[in-house]
């Protein structure tokens, strides 16, 4: 836990983990669940709704979806901003840390605090994973770094920083297969080839507004702008083609 804290101390905001593509939510029993952006504080998975506020995580049972019941509440830390799920884990992003929780028992998320537990997780994720994290300055974020950080997650509890790419003012981000889309504020949308997961290569920059977040959704990239939305066709993942802008 301490190592984790130390490594992620300067980090702020959105987190995305490979090989997950986006905030695709998988719920049990074939329920149809949609996809949110990387900035979300709500996430539904495993028949539970998880909500993070500034300091706590709240767990609701969705056994009866029309009547969610809060079954658990726990302190996480300070300045919590985002939640993300991957298989049986929740990744909670705060302004200065990432917290990894096990939801093997979905009703009682448990902070993963030991390497031994780590070795028990799904080896595909453990061997083949990377975390992309955006760090930005801003009145609520503090710090003086604007960058994309790349972390090896071969050991989830002992992430190793493998790369830093300076950016302008990155917000949310979305990942689909081997393409990473980073919303870099006024500098627009940046497209990275992440075939080499730890060595993202910028292949395109689209300056067309103030980009805050994006969701790759099959052949469509849905972007949240400061003043609306933009839809891009990403049949060619490296070359998003504008379909429509929705403003006003």
């Amino acid at each position, binding site marked *: 836990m301490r190592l984790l804290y130390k490594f992620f101390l300067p980090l702020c905001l959105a987190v995305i983990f490979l090989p997950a593509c986006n905030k695709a939510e998988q719920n049990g029993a074939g329920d*149809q669940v949609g996809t949110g952006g990387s900035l979300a504080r709500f996430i539904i998975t495993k028949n539970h709704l998880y909500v993070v506020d500034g300091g706590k995580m709240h767990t609701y049972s969705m056994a009866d979806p029309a009547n969610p019941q809060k079954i658990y509440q726990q302190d996480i830390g300070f300045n919590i901003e985002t939640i993300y799920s991957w298989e049986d884990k929740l990744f909670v992003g705060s302004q200065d840390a990432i917290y990894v929780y096990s939801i093997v028992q979905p009703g009682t998320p448990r902070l993963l605090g030991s390497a031994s537990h780590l070795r028990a997780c799904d080896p595909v994720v453990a061997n083949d994973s990377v975390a992309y994290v955006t760090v930005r300055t801003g009145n609520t974020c503090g710090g003086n770094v604007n960058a994309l950080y790349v972390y090896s997650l071969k050991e989830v509890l002992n992430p190793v920083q493998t790369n830093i790419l300076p950016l302008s003012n990155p917000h949310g981000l979305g990942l689909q297969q081997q393409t990473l889309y980073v919303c870099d504020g006024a500098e627009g949308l940046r497209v990275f080839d992440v075939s080499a997961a730890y060595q993202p290569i910028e292949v395109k920059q689209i300056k067309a507004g103030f980009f805050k977040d994006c*969701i790759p959704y099959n052949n469509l990239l849905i972007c949240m702008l400061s003043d609306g939305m933009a839809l891009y066709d990403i049949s060619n993942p490296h070359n998003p083609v504008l379909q429509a802008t929705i403003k006003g």
Partner: protein
Amino acid sequence: MMKRFAIASSAATLLLAFASCNDRQNQEVMGYAPVYHTDSARSKVSTIAPQPIVEAGKIYVRENTLFQVENGQGIHVLDISQPDQPEKLAFIVVEGAQELSIIDNILYTNSYNDLLVIDISDLHQAVLLNRVANTFKLQQHDRPPESGYFECPDPEKGTVIGWQKKMLQSPRCKY
């Protein structure tokens, strides 16, 4: 190193926590006054005609339907089955909304610190099914966005959901 940081940050937190309540007697100064949310203001959920996007919030997609939060006001619903011709379908009025998630035909969002459960089987007529009141603190406004003088919040008046900058008469709080 970590310990030192921890100590320094706890000290800073303590300092902030005990933001002084100064007397600024008989003086008019620019500062912040709390905006309260009272039970009676808890809005009903309704669906109205499409609205302009003003305070663009978080996005959520399910199949051919795209949702964007209008921060503090509700949720825009759009049909994107033809991505080059997205069409606004409706606007779901939810006061204090910031977040959303969907399972089947049920949409979960927040109205300030309440969790709302909304049936969206008919996107043109969303129906509030349930409300879990005061269940989290997505709205946490213990102090104004800027340091300076402010009117001390009065819990009797309800939950503080924001701050309004204005001239204050002898404000008693400052940080």
